[in-house]
């Protein structure tokens, strides 16, 4: 694929400077030394085009991964650059995200295939479209950037920051317990915590009321899995908290390799092993927006299913 050459910010300034000098040259009478300097600047520009192109010619690169990241964490781009048959200087794989954000993975000097990584300052929740992915170089003079388009993921998913266990609303453990839903059978009784009990079974609200750890025992537990209803008819602030807690639940379910079923206004699906992939659910969370109160309700489910953000109100 052919490469493209564009001036960098420094190159644009240099071009403006060169034009200005040319105007001055023609405003003044001919002078050999002034002409020599202008020719020097022109030669530098022309040779720079050749050198910059040559530094990129024969280079291959690919984006290895662009994993979804939680809000507040640093997005990481992992790429691989193969310099080809000779050493190269100052190559980089860059992703241009919407909103003029740039994610670059540079390598100073490559004489053999190299794995490179680059990161971006933390982003807020959302789905960021990848406008372009390129391997590029400004070497040697920094006035021009030669680049070639790469295949890359179409977007960067920044899902809600997972709430911690000490969250004021009762915590992920309680939510995990509540979200057990029908797949765990019916809640039987509350009893004091005993060593060996799973953290997910801690009932945080009861624990808070009694002042000692309390767990919820289940009757007729019928297998693993979580089920959550996300009602998007909510105010922004509780909605974000609900997403944060749901995100934590998703992460926990993923780590424990348990499926999670999500019901919301326009989606009712199960994610996890044997179901739809986790990144899809993370994308749903990243893109979720609150709906007005008049919007339709989410699908009907058993009353025992965790309902967000109602459960944390």
């Amino acid at each position: 694929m052919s490469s493209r050459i564009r001036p960098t910010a420094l190159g644009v300034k240099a071009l403006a400077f060169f034009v200005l000098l040319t105007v001055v040259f023609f405003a003044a009478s001919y002078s050999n030394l002034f002409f020599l300097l202008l020719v020097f600047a022109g030669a530098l520009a022309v040779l720079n085009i050749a050198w910059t192109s040559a530094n990129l010619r024969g280079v291959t690169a690919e984006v290895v991964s662009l994993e979804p990241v939680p809000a507040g964490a640093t997005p990481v781009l992992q790429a691989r650059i193969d310099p080809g048959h000779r050493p190269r200087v100052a190559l980089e794989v860059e992703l241009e995200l919407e909103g003029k954000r740039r994610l670059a993975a540079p390598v100073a000097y490559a004489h053999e295939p190299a794995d490179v990584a680059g990161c971006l300052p933390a982003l807020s929740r959302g789905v960021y479209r990848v406008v372009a992915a390129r391997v590029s170089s400004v070497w040697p003079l920094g006035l021009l950037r030669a680049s070639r388009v790469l295949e890359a993921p179409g977007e960067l998913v920044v899902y809600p920051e997972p709430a911690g266990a000490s969250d004021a609303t009762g915590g992920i453990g309680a939510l995990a317990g509540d979200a057990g839903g029908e797949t765990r059978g019916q809640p039987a009784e509350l009893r004091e915590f005993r060593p060996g009990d799973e953290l997910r079974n801690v009932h945080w609200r009861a624990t808070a009321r009694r002042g000692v750890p309390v767990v919820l025992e289940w009757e007729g537990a019928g297998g693993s899995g979580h089920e959550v209803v996300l009602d998007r008819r909510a105010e922004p602030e509780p909605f974000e908290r609900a997403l944060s807690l749901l995100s934590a639940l998703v992460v926990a379910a993923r780590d424990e390799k348990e499926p999670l079923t999500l019901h919301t206004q326009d989606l009712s699906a199960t994610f996890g092993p044997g179901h739809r992939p986790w990144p899809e659910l993370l994308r749903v969370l990243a893109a979720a927006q609150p709906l007005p109160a008049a919007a339709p309700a989410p699908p009907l489910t058993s009353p025992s299913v965790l309902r967000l953000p109602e459960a944390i109100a």
Partner: protein
Amino acid sequence: MTRPLRFAMVALVLVNLGFVHITEAARLLWMLPLIGLTVASPWLVRFGRHLAYRSFWNLGVMGAFALLVHHFTSRGSAYLLEDGLLLAALCQVHLLNNAGARQKPDLLFFNSFLIAVVTSFLSLDVAYSLMFALYVPVLVVALQLLALHRAGVAAEPGLAVRVVRQGLLRGAVVLGVTLAAFALMPRDFRRKGVLAGSWTLKPPGGMEVGFNPTIDFRRKGRVTSSDRVVMRIRRVSGNPADVPSYWRGAALVHFDGQQWRPGGRHDARSSELWRRRSRAEMRRLAGRVDAEVEVTIADRRSTSLFAPLRASRLRAPSVYAVRGYPDATLRATLPGQYKSYRVAIANRVRPFGRSGPARPVGRLRTLLDVGPGLPRAGRDLADRLAAGLEPGASQHRLVETMRAHLFQNYRYLPPGSDDGAHDLRDFFGGKPAGHCEIFATALTLMLRRAGVPARVVTGYCSTEWDDEQTVLTVRARHAHAWVEALDPKARWYTVDATPAADEGAMTAGAGWIERARAWAAGLWSRVVGFNSSTQAKVGAWLGALPGRVLRALRASPLTTALGLAALVALLVVARRARRRGIPAATRRYRAALRRFGVALRPGETPRMLLARLQLADSQRTVLEAVTAEHEQGRYASARVR
């Protein structure tokens, strides 16, 4: 900012200060603090986070700017370029000492180029070529390090060395391409600028040794001498001996005791008048042309066109609007640019269209007017020397006697010397030493006292030929004043009583450094004085080159074979040097892949490749070995990548 980039910027600014220095826009004493601040900048820049430090710099630059504005308002635009250059240099040092996260270094690079451009207007000296040759690689290296810095990669020591090496090579390539384009690009060498008419600078009134169209003994103060090249004279035809050392700029006739002024039409009948033949050509003497020279005046502010006394023809672009004066001097009415013109010299000539008998001296009263300028001691000396000659002695003998007396009994001292005479009263009183203007004045008035028409001439006297005796370089310090006497046959001739007038003799027989400098100066003069005829010659030479090369190859096959072998060896060495950055293990691994006709897929590791391939046992063994060696070099080597 990385350390290599910081040091490259220091080098760039030092080169800029070198540019400023060769223009002599500021004395070395003024430059030293700037040099010190430049060299110390890697240490000083750490204070950049303090407001007081930044304020100090900003106030300093503003103060310097105010001083330069004051200079401009008090001295006019004569030093506009020099002042601008100084300000640019100060800004460079300021930028260097404040470059960092807040202050991008971009401006420093553009400013450096601007300084090179402005310097080209102020200096045509060979020193400029050296500074330019130094500037190019430093600029390229600094730009490369800036590119690395911008790309967000750290220039490790090994990489920095590689960058510097590549930068030097690239600088040489750019220089070569620049010179080739400069020589071959078609252009109008006589183009008049759009603003050339209105964009002029007035002549300076400084105290530097240099050409002065008048002489004023009331001017006092420190006088500096400069090596600045003000004129180059390239011999086009004739022998070097036929090109005079004395190049006239002004002829002075009236002396009021302190000041010499040019004459009006005083000697209109006696001078060898310039007559215009066409818009671009003037003539004044008839006779065979002994030599022809091409003169390039590097002093942009000069309006005088210098020519020797025996100049017979002048060809100059019509845009100069040259005027000839009765005293045989020439002036152009187009200041503000370099001037280049051709002068034919006829040493054995008669006055153009005038070969009549000698005219009565009595009609040349102005040229015999002693006025109040010659003190009694001078008059007595002139009378005594004239009386000492035998009756009927020729005028030449009288002139030579007086010249020799001053030359042998009085000492030369540079202008501004405390021990030297400030006027003729001192000179003939208790200080028998002085500079050329004193000698010329004394001799002129003594000759007039003895009845010989004479005038003072100012201009340049140089014998600084290059080795090939093709280019005569004239520097500011070659400025000189001498005497012209009118013989009874109405012919002017040059008389010089100043003992140290022949400065060129001091450099004759100098060592190889001086010879190398003269050679470089001659070469540079070809660049500075490049014109359409030179370009045509270069074009013709290049056009004939293939034929010459072919003839040479046919003439000596052994040399050709050796040359080709050397070329191949050079290419092999270059290829090896290029691949030196790749470890041997990696090269062997790649060679094995090529040999077996396989290649890594994007993202595939050597181990994955081994697992994927179906190879014969022998091939697999080889590939496993080179893979292991490659991995050893890749992951277990201490080499910094």
